[in-house]
């Protein structure tokens, strides 16, 4: 932006060269300051005994991590997180592919269907947590009323460990299955019809065409869905917080039976106010997410490479 007039001829190339960087700069600046830096700094805070309101932080080395190894609550939270993640991701993927296949059967899926399928994503996680906590209510909940109608015993979803995990997985699945179905549908629509025609000529039925043409070509998309579900699924926070029988609590059930790691991070940092320890918990989760995302990413690249 130097001199105008005579200097302009030399000035213009500089501006032209800088312009693209200016367009992408807002993202990089903002992401570095509010995303990347806090994430890395979490690792630094985890080396301190750092009270939210108390004295100045003292360096403790890896003591927070050593404490973590012997912390039963953390162990429970880790198992809960993985259990909820598995209960949520598996069924979700199967149903999403099924719904996408159903929508794909129509010549042109109408907007109405797609809006209806996407509707759950519009409800906030807090609202989902409230509505499903009511549906899964131990005494007057609709789910237990339905179980009673079938002659089955009521389930205490807020007290039983596995039942709590199932209830939380149902919330996650309800909110995300339709969205993922539309992602898969878009990939299905991109498959060239000639491939199906060739399979029909070879005498392949509906199921064989789905199994041997559709599914292999969907693999990169399915892995994308798995990766995003992994990243989100390991950070589940709101659903267990709202399912708790004691409203407002971050305990994840009376004995922490459905407390997730993200919930434990929140509780340790902003209720127990031990920022250093909470950061160690968060950092372990970061590494876990990064590890699983990286594994999935490698798998995606390998399989996408093989399948073309």
């Amino acid at each position, binding site marked *: 932006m130097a001199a105008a007039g005579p200097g302009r001829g030399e000035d213009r190339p500089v501006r032209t060269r800088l312009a693209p960087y200016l367009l992408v700069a807002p993202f990089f600046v903002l992401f570095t300051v509010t995303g990347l830096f806090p994430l890395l700094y979490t690792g630094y805070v985890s080396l301190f005994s750092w009270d939210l309101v108390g004295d100045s932080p003292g360096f403790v080395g890896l003591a927070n991590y050593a404490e973590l190894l012997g912390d039963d609550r953390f162990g429970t939270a880790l198992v809960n997180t993985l259990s909820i993640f598995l209960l949520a991701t598996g069924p979700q993927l199967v149903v999403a592919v099924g719904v996408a296949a159903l929508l794909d059967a129509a010549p042109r899926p109408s907007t109405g269907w797609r809006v209806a399928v996407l509707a759950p994503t519009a409800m*906030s996680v807090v609202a*989902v947590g409230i509505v499903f906590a009511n549906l899964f209510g131990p005494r007057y909940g609709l789910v237990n009323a339905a179980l009673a109608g079938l002659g089955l015993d009521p389930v205490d979803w807020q007290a039983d460990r596995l039942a709590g995990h199932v209830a939380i997985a149902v919330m996650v699945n309800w909110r995300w299955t339709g969205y993922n179905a539309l992602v898969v549908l878009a990939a299905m629509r991109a498959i060239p019809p000639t491939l199906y025609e060739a399979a029909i000529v070879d005498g392949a039925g509906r199921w064989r065409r789905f199994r041997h043409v559709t599914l292999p070509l969907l693999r990169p998309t399915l892995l994308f869905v798995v990766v995003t579900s992994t990243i989100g699924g390991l950070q589940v926070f709101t659903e267990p917080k709202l399912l708790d029988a004691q409203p407002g609590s971050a305990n994840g059930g009376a004995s922490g039976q459905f407390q997730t790691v993200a919930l434990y991070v929140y509780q340790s940092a902003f209720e127990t106010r031990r920022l250093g320890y909470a950061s160690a918990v968060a950092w372990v989760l970061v590494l876990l997410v990064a590890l699983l995302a990286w594994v999935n990413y490698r798998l995606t690249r390998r399989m996408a490479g093989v399948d073309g």
Partner: protein
Amino acid sequence: MRAPTCLLLLAFVAGSLFPYYWAFLVGSQDAVSMTGATLVPGGHFLDNARRVFDTVPFWRALGNSVVVAGTVTVSTVVFASLAGFAFARARFPGRDRMFRFVVATMALPTQLGIIPLYLAMAELGWAGGLQAVIVPNLVTALGVFWMRQYTLSAVPAELVDAARVDGCSLARAYWHVCLPSVRPALAALGMFTFMASWNDFLWPLVALDADHPTVQLALERLQSGHYVDYPLVLAGTTLATVPVLLVFAAFGRRGLDGAALG
């Protein structure tokens, strides 16, 4: 569509919509006489809604959420489309490496950096106020990625190059060549950004004080009494969901078309 396909889809859609109906259903019951499950709406929705506004500062929460989600949406759409255009149609050293970085960051659980982010906000004196939840969300990697993919498919490189040869600056090429073609993607990105911001919970819970609630924080506060008054809470849930449904209805069609192409 064949009958079995249609029936299965109808069942799935019924399941997708039922919790919305259930929220309204319970929200319309009489709080006093509410006992077991019923499937018929009662006539007390307006009473319950009035009690929502009496119990928590719901108007202020709505206003705060409109300010936060509105600012975040406009800013994300602007910054993401500018960056997406540069990544798709400008040529500059380091472009591909920078874009790979953007993609890689989408896998980072940045939500887990809330502890240092909170310390930083406290240091700046922003903790508690709305700027604490607005500033970190002004643009996202997903938005940049999305706009880049859409620009690649919707804005021909020859058109941009021709404009540049004619002496058009990058900014003018963005305004006159790129922007008119990527409107469906802007609608889609705007719709999803608004929904994500309106529905955000963890960071607002940490960063905002009791005087600056968003709708989600007000909802959680409604549910946090010792005795949960479900007709009250679910009337509030219904009210909190209406603005998102309005945005969804207004942008849904264009948003979905944009999303399908992107």
